């Protein structure tokens, strides 16, 4: 069995979510919008799931709109907010966002909106003062990730709330990597919109949610029926939603102990790798970081080689993002943080999750240095062309 350390890409299905799926297969029969009793029962399951997701982030159930996942939620937040805003033409974001944010902003730019992309510090933090400085009466939306998917850095966004509200700009937080890893309270964060991903929590891929504080301030992307409070037409993904709800409830119950356990495993792994690999560097903030994520620059090797060599040894990690053909590209986040292309190409992301064990981490702490030595010896990065 492979040891899975790629939880920021997607978490393994939680047993609670699996049980919910089994219940769905056994019991559910109908469309939550139908009047008959099967439909009513389906509706109850859907609404229960909505409440479960809402309580994970301090929202009211009616503020949760189910979507197909984090990417749709981000698209929905951005295009929905811009469509609902009449005359404001500026959007503020950063250089280290998820591709679904970057892609949406590029399209808005093509349509003539002004996009301000704040650069991060070398540890991946965004300076709230620079965001506030970019804010004006023309700003429609500020969209920022709470925890960075690649380096794990957590942004301090709470100081922005007041300024944003005063400027009349909508505030969208992409919390796909943060929910379930740090306590989230939508009121405390003061956001108008927040993206939540299902499979980062241990639900299957294909389900996510957007928290919408005030439905009047966002327009739907998908038009048709009145489902999801009129914000997303189409028969909801009931199977996904109840698995999402079950995963959310499991996360909420487990968080007090699980976060600390994962943090301890991650710290152990980092310490042991640091001892075995001279010159190993941690990317991202050492203190303000989701505790499951290690983005590491390995000296003198190509990350691509490490990634494949580790996979063949049964250790699954990741690097940057895959191109359409399946080759890996250096991380845009590391480049934005000022790392060289060579360093970005020598970096791997290791992200732990709910089902990693101490035994697994012990094995990985032995395998990674061994593989690193072999790769560095066989194919030193200075021999390989980078750039």
């Amino acid at each position, binding site marked *: 069995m492979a040891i899975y350390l790629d939880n920021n890409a997607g978490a393994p299905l939680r047993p609670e979510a699996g049980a919910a799926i089994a219940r769905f297969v056994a019991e559910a029969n109908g469309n939550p919008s139908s009047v008959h009793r099967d439909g009513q029962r389906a509706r109850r399951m859907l609404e229960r799931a909505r409440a479960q997701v809402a309580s994970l982030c301090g929202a009211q159930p009616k503020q949760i709109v189910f979507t197909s996942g984090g990417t749709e939620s981000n698209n929905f937040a951005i295009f929905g907010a811009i469509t609902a805003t009449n005359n404001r033409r500026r959007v503020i974001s950063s250089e280290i966002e998820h591709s679904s944010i970057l892609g949406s902003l590029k399209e808005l730019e093509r349509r003539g909106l002004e996009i301000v992309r704040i650069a991060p510090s070398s540890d991946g933090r965004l300076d709230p003062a620079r965001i506030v400085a970019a804010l004006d009466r023309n700003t429609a939306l500020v969209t920022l990730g709470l925890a960075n998917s690649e380096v794990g850095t957590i942004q301090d966004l709470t100081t922005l709330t007041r300024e944003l509200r005063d400027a009349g700009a909508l505030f969208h937080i992409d919390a796909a990597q943060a929910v379930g890893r740090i306590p989230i309270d939508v009121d405390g964060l003061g956001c108008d919109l927040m993206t939540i991903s299902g499979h980062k929590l241990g639900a299957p891929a294909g389900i996510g949610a957007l928290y919408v504080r005030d439905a009047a301030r966002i327009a739907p992307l998908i038009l048709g029926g009145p489902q999801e409070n009129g914000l997303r037409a189409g028969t909801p993904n009931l199977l996904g939603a109840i698995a999402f709800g079950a995963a959310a409830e499991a996360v909420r119950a487990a968080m007090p102990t699980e976060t600390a356990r994962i943090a301890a495993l991650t710290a152990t792994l980092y310490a042991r790798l640091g001892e075995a690999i001279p010159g190993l560097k941690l990317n991202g903030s050492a203190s303000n970081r989701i505790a499951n994520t290690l983005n590491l620059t390995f000296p003198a090797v190509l990350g691509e080689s490490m990634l494949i*060599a580790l*996979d063949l040894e049964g250790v699954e990690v990741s690097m940057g993002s895959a191109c359409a*053909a399946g080759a890996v*590209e250096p991380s845009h986040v590391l480049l934005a943080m000022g790392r060289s292309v060579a360093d970005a190409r020598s970096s791997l992301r290791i992200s732990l999750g709910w089902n990693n064990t101490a035994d697994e981490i012990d094995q990985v702490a032995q395998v990674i240095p061994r593989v690193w030595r*072999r790769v560095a010896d*066989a194919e030193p990065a200075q*021999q*390989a062309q980078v750039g």
Partner: protein
Amino acid sequence: MSPRVIVAMSGGVDSSVAAALLCEQGYDVIGIAMRLASEPTTPVAKRRGTCCSHDDFEDARRVAERMDFPFYVIDLRADFNARVIDNFVSEYLGGRTPNPCVMCNREIKFDRLWSRARALDADYIATGHYARIHRDDRGGFHLMRAADDAKDQSYFLFTLGQAELSRTIFPLGTMTKAEVRERARELGLATADKPESQEICFVPDGDYARFVERQSDHSQIRSGRIIDAQGRALADHDGVHRFTVGQRRGLGIATGDRLYVREIRAASGDVVVGRREELNSPGLIASRVSLVDESIASRGEVPVEVKIRYRHAAIPASFHLESDGRAEVRFTDGGPAVTPGQACVFYRGDEVLGGGFIERALEA
């Protein structure tokens, strides 16, 4: 534990069958597709495809799924640019006609890919080349022509030495192309009926001149005159990179005689033309000569057959190795037009003894 072999997979039928055969033989096969050039962007390039298109990688991936071995795409674009494309461009700009497949084998497949293979703890690398490796009783390795004469690719592999051959497998060396396709169909491989790939993968439209122009500064383009052997100017031309020795068409000269490119003088920009018989030369000087078995080097005048273009037949000759990695090659019965930049490969019967890159023709 079975030996681990990295198979270079292009998504074509040859490397697909090579990987599948090694699987059947019990090797621990890992498929690797090398991303060498960027995705084609023009509609023409997309239609023709290159060795590195998304579809080709998906074809290779399907073979890996079918045969149940791990498969990865690796990014060697920077290496390919630095070690193959730059050389290709500078050779053309220098008035020579390069053979990028030889360079790609030497620099990418049997060097960079081998480093990667060691990083992945592999014992061997394998490709879908049509060539054979024979191991003699004393542990020496011999590079041999493929059984299928029509497909033989040993010409492109002359740079391999003992070290490379000892860790390389050519599973298709004893098969014909028809047999390879037949095996692909038997194995249910999606690539069974794929057409042959292009001659040069990174110039899918075949327009080398335009490729060279895109890849170089205008100041590097050496335009000049087309002249005859007496130095009379016959026409102007837009760059020496547009010509190859032996070329007849596209000279833009209307005369009674059939004229061929005889010599390209990059420094002055002169392209010398002449009649067919004026092209023949008694031999050539090759540089960067390598020998499959280095012990041949001490034997003075070595009788061989040489092949000076991939599609030419081997002709009788002898070579003499100089001290600086050069060799003087003399054709036994006089020879054809010699094209600088091309590989000159020494054969003895079916065996490849080595070869080099043609620097210039010997004067008659």
